[in-house]
C-alpha cells in the first residue's frame, strides 16, 4: 500500500493531468482577459467612430441652418426696408421655399417689440425675457441655438428656436434687432434616430443648459419610467468614460457640436458590446476544454503504454526471482522498452543455461566421487595384486611378496586418505609410484619408470588419484607390445607459475582422433584399472580450478605419448 502511494504510475499521470488542467484553465483565463480587453478597446473605437459620424452629420446640418439664417438676414432683412411690401413678400417666399424645415420666422427690435413675423408664428409675450432673445443680444457675432419646443402636437412637430442679432432697415435707417427662426427638429432627429435606440445602446442631445433636445426614450422619461443617469458623466468626460449604473458597466462617449454648444452623448452597455465576443469566448473555451480532455486521455494512454510493459516486466522478474526460471518477458513496448524485455530474456536464458551447467557439474561431481570411492577399493586391482602375491609366495619369492604387500598397503593408505579429496603432491606421487611399482612387479618388469619431481612443489595440493588414470593409460595403451624396454616417466615441474605433471611413455603413440576420443569420452583404460577415465580427471580439475587448467595429451606415433596435468600452486584448500 505504501509502495502504491509513491508509485510513479499514480503520481505521474495525476501530476500530468493536473498540469494539463492548470494549463487549460490558465489559457482560458488569459484568453478571456486579453480578448475582453481587445474587444473592449475595439468596441470603444467603433463607438467612437459612430459618435464622430453622428457629430459630423449634425455639424453639417447645423452648417445648413447657419447658411439659411444668414441667407435670410443678408438677402432679405439687410436688403429691404421692413415696412416695405417687398420685404414681407421675400420673407414669405423664403418660408414657402423652406417650408419642410422652416416653421416660422420673426423679427424683433432690440427692445423686444415685434416688427414682423410669419403667419404660423405664435407671437411670444415678453420676447425680450426669452432665452433665445437674451443670448442673441449678448452674442451679436454668433448664431444662438435655443430650446426645443413642441409646436404641433397632432403632427408630432418640434422646432429649435434659433436666433441671431441682425441689423434691419426701417425708414431708411439701420436698426438693431433679433431674428428668430423656428426650425423643425426633424432633420436633427432623423440623424440621431439612425443610431440603434435600444436601452443598451442609444444617443441623446443636450443643449448648453443640459436641457434634453433629443432622447429616444422621451415618453418614458416624461412618464417617470426612465431617468437618464449619464448626463453628468457625459459632460465631465473628454473622450469616453466607463461608469457603473443599474448593475451594469456603461460606455459613455460625449461630443460637443460646433457653433451650438450642444452635447451629443452616445451611451452603450458594455455587456451588450462584448456580447458578440461571448460566442467566440465560449467556442474557444469549448475547444480548449476539449483539447484538455484529449490531452489527458492521450497522457493516460501514452503513460499506460509506457508503464504497462515495465510493470509486466517487473512481474516477470518477480516470478523469476521466486524461482520460476521459465518465466520470460513479453517483448513489447516502445523503442528501448522493448530492448529491456529482450535483454532480460537473454539474461534469463544465460542464467538458466549457467544454472543447468552448475547442476550438471554437480551431478558430475557426485558421480566422480562415487567412482573415486569405488576406485579406492577397486576389487579387480586388489584381486590381481593379491593373486600376484600368492604366486610369489608359492614361488618362494618371499622378499618380492613382502615388498608387494608393503606397496599395496601404501597404495590403499593414500587411496583412502581419510576420505580427503585433496592431498599433497608428495602423497599423490607416492601413490603413483606405489601403483607403478605394483604394476611393474605384476607385469614382470615389462617397463621401467622414473620419477623426476621438483621437491619444492611437493608441498602443494592436488586432486587425489589424478595421476593414476594417466598411468593406467600409459601402461595399458603405451606399454602394449613392449617387452622389458618400456619406459614411463613422471615429471613434476613449475612452468609459468603453475605446476605441470607430465606422464610420458615411449609407447607406440596415438593418432589425434584417439587422443580426442580419450579426452572427450568417459572411457577407462582397463576394467582392471581405477575405472576413472582421463576425461573424468580433466573435468574434475577444471571443476576445481577452472577452465584454464586440466589435462593435455600430445603424442607422436612410434615416439610415445605425453599427458600433462596443469594445476595451480595451492598449499591448502577447502575440501568443499
Amino acid at each position, binding site marked *: 500500500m505504501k509502495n502504491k502511494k509513491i508509485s510513479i504510475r499514480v503520481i505521474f499521470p495525476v501530476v500530468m493531468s493536473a498540469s494539463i488542467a492548470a494549463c487549460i484553465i490558465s489559457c482560458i483565463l488569459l484568453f478571456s482577459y486579453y480578448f475582453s480587453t481587445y474587444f473592449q478597446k475595439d468596441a470603444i473605437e467603433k463607438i467612437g467612430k459612430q459618435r464622430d459620424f453622428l457629430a459630423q452629420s449634425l455639424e453639417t446640418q447645423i452648417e445648413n441652418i447657419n447658411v439659411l439664417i444668414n441667407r435670410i438676414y443678408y438677402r432679405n432683412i439687410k436688403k429691404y426696408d421692413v415696412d416695405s411690401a417687398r420685404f414681407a413678400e421675400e420673407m414669405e417666399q423664403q418660408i414657402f421655399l423652406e417650408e419642410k424645415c422652416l416653421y416660422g420666422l420673426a423679427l424683433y427690435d432690440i427692445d423686444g417689440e415685434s416688427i414682423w413675423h410669419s403667419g404660423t408664428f405664435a407671437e411670444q409675450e415678453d420676447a425680450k425675457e426669452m432665452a433665445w432673445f437674451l443670448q442673441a443680444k449678448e452674442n451679436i457675432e454668433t448664431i444662438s441655438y435655443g430650446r426645443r419646443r*413642441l409646436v404641433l*402636437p397632432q403632427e408630432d412637430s418640434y422646432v429649435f428656436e434659433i436666433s441671431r442679432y441682425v441689423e434691419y432697415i426701417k425708414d431708411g435707417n439701420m436698426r438693431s434687432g433679433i431674428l428668430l427662426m423656428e426650425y423643425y427638429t426633424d432633420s436633427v432627429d432623423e440623424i440621431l434616430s439612425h443610431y440603434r435606440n435600444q436601452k443598451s445602446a442609444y444617443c441623446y442631445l443636450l443643449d448648453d443648459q443640459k436641457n434634453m433636445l433629443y432622447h429616444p426614450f422621451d415618453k418614458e422619461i416624461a*412618464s417617470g*419610467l426612465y431617468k437618464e443617469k449619464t448626463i453628468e458623466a457625459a459632460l465631465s468626460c473628454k473622450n469616453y468614460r466607463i461608469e457603473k449604473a443599474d448593475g451594469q458597466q456603461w460606455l459613455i462617449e460625449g461630443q460637443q457640436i460646433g457653433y451650438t454648444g450642444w452635447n451629443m452623448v452616445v451611451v452603450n452597455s458594455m455587456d451588450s458590446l462584448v456580447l458578440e465576443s461571448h460566442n467566440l469566448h465560449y467556442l474557444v*473555451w469549448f475547444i480548449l476544454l476539449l483539447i484538455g*480532455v484529449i490531452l489527458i486521455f492521450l497522457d493516460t494512454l501514452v503513460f499506460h503504454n509506457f508503464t504497462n510493459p515495465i510493470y509486466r516486466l517487473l512481474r516477470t522478474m518477480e516470478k523469476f526471482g521466486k524461482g520460476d526460471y521459465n518465466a520470460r518477458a513479453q517483448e513489447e513496448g516502445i523503442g528501448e522498452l522493448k530492448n529491456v524485455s529482450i535483454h532480460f530474456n537473454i539474461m534469463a536464458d544465460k542464467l538458466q543455461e549457467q544454472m543447468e551447467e552448475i547442476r550438471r557439474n554437480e551431478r558430475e561431481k557426485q558421480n566422480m566421487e562415487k567412482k573415486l570411492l569405488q576406485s579406492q577399493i577397486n576389487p579387480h586391482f586388489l584381486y590381481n595384486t593379491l593373486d600376484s602375491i600368492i604366486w610369489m609366495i608359492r614361488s618362494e619369492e618371499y622378499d618380492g611378496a613382502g615388498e608387494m604387500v608393503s606397496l599395496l598397503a601404501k597404495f590403499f593408505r593414500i587411496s583412502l586418505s581419510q576420505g580427503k579429496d585433496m592431498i599433497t603432491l608428495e602423497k599423490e606421487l607416492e601413490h603413483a609410484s606405489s601403483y607403478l611399482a605394483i604394476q611393474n612387479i605384476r607385469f614382470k618388469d615389462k617397463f621401467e619408470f622414473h620419477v623426476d619431481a621438483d621437491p619444492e612443489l611437493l608441498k602443494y595440493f592436488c586432486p587425489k588419484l589424478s595421476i593414476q588414470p594417466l598411468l593406467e593409460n600409459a601402461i595399458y595403451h603405451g606399454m602394449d607390445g613392449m617387452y622389458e624396454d618400456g619406459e614411463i616417466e613422471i615429471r613434476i615441474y613449475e612452468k609459468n607459475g603453475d605446476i605441470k605433471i607430465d606422464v610420458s611413455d615411449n609407447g607406440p603413440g596415438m593418432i589425434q582422433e584417439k587422443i580426442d576420443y580419450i579426452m572427450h569420452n568417459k572411457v577407462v583404460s582397463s576394467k582392471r584399472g581405477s575405472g576413472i577415465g582421463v576425461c573424468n580427471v580433466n573435468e574434475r580439475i577444471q571443476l576445481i580450478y577452472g577452465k584454464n587448467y586440466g589435462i593435455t595429451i600430445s603424442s607422436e606415433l612410434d615416439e610415445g605419448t605425453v599427458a600433462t596435468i596443469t594445476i595451480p600452486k595451492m598449499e591448502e584448500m577447502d575440501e568443499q
Partner: protein
Amino acid sequence: MSSKKKHIILILVLVLIALISFLYMTVRNHRAEKSRITIVLPQNTQEDLSSVQEGIRDYAYDHQIKLDVWYKKQMSEKSFAELVKEEKQNRSMGILLVYPEFYLKKNQNGYKYKEVLALTDTMKESFLHYAAFVRREQEEETYRMPISETVLGQIKSGRKKEVYMENTYRLGYECMQMIEAYGKKKKMESIFLQPLKLDREILEAGSLDALLVR
C-alpha cells in the same frame, strides 16, 4: 482512489464544463424567445389605444419580450377560458386584456385567473387584478392621452387653469412590467395610476411634451 478513477472523474468534470458552457451559450442565445406575453385588444373600437399600445410595445422592445396579440370583437367566457389555457401551454407569462369591456361580458362571479391583468375602466370587479387610473372628484377636468389641441390651447391661453392627464402610455408600460414580474415571481397586483397634472407652467417647461404628441 485509484489513478484510473481520478482520471475518469477529471475527464468527466472537463467534459461537463465544456457541455455547460456550450449549453449556456445555446440557451443564452434563445433565452429571449422564451419570454412571451399575450395581449388582447378590442377590435373596431373608437377608443384611442395608440398610447397604451405604444407603452406595451416599448416595454416589450426594451425587455425582448415576444407579444402574442389577439384582436377580439367578441369573446365568450368559454373562448376566454380556452385562450387562457392555450396561452399557458404556449408558456406565456401572462395575459393583458386591454379594455375587456369592449369584447368580454361581465361575469357575476368574475374571471378568477391569476395570470390575467385587465386594463379597464368599468370591469374592475370582474378580475382578480386590474390596472386603472385613480378617479378624481372633478372628472370633467381629467383627459385621456392624447389631449386635444383645443384643451392645450385653453391651458396656454389661461382659459383653463389646470387639467389632469391619464397617462395611458405609462399604464400600458406598467401592465407589461407587472405581467413580467408575475412570470418571474408569480406575484401579481393591481395597478392604480394617478393622472398627471397639466398647467401652463408645465406646458411652457416642455417636460411633458413627449406625452402630448399623437
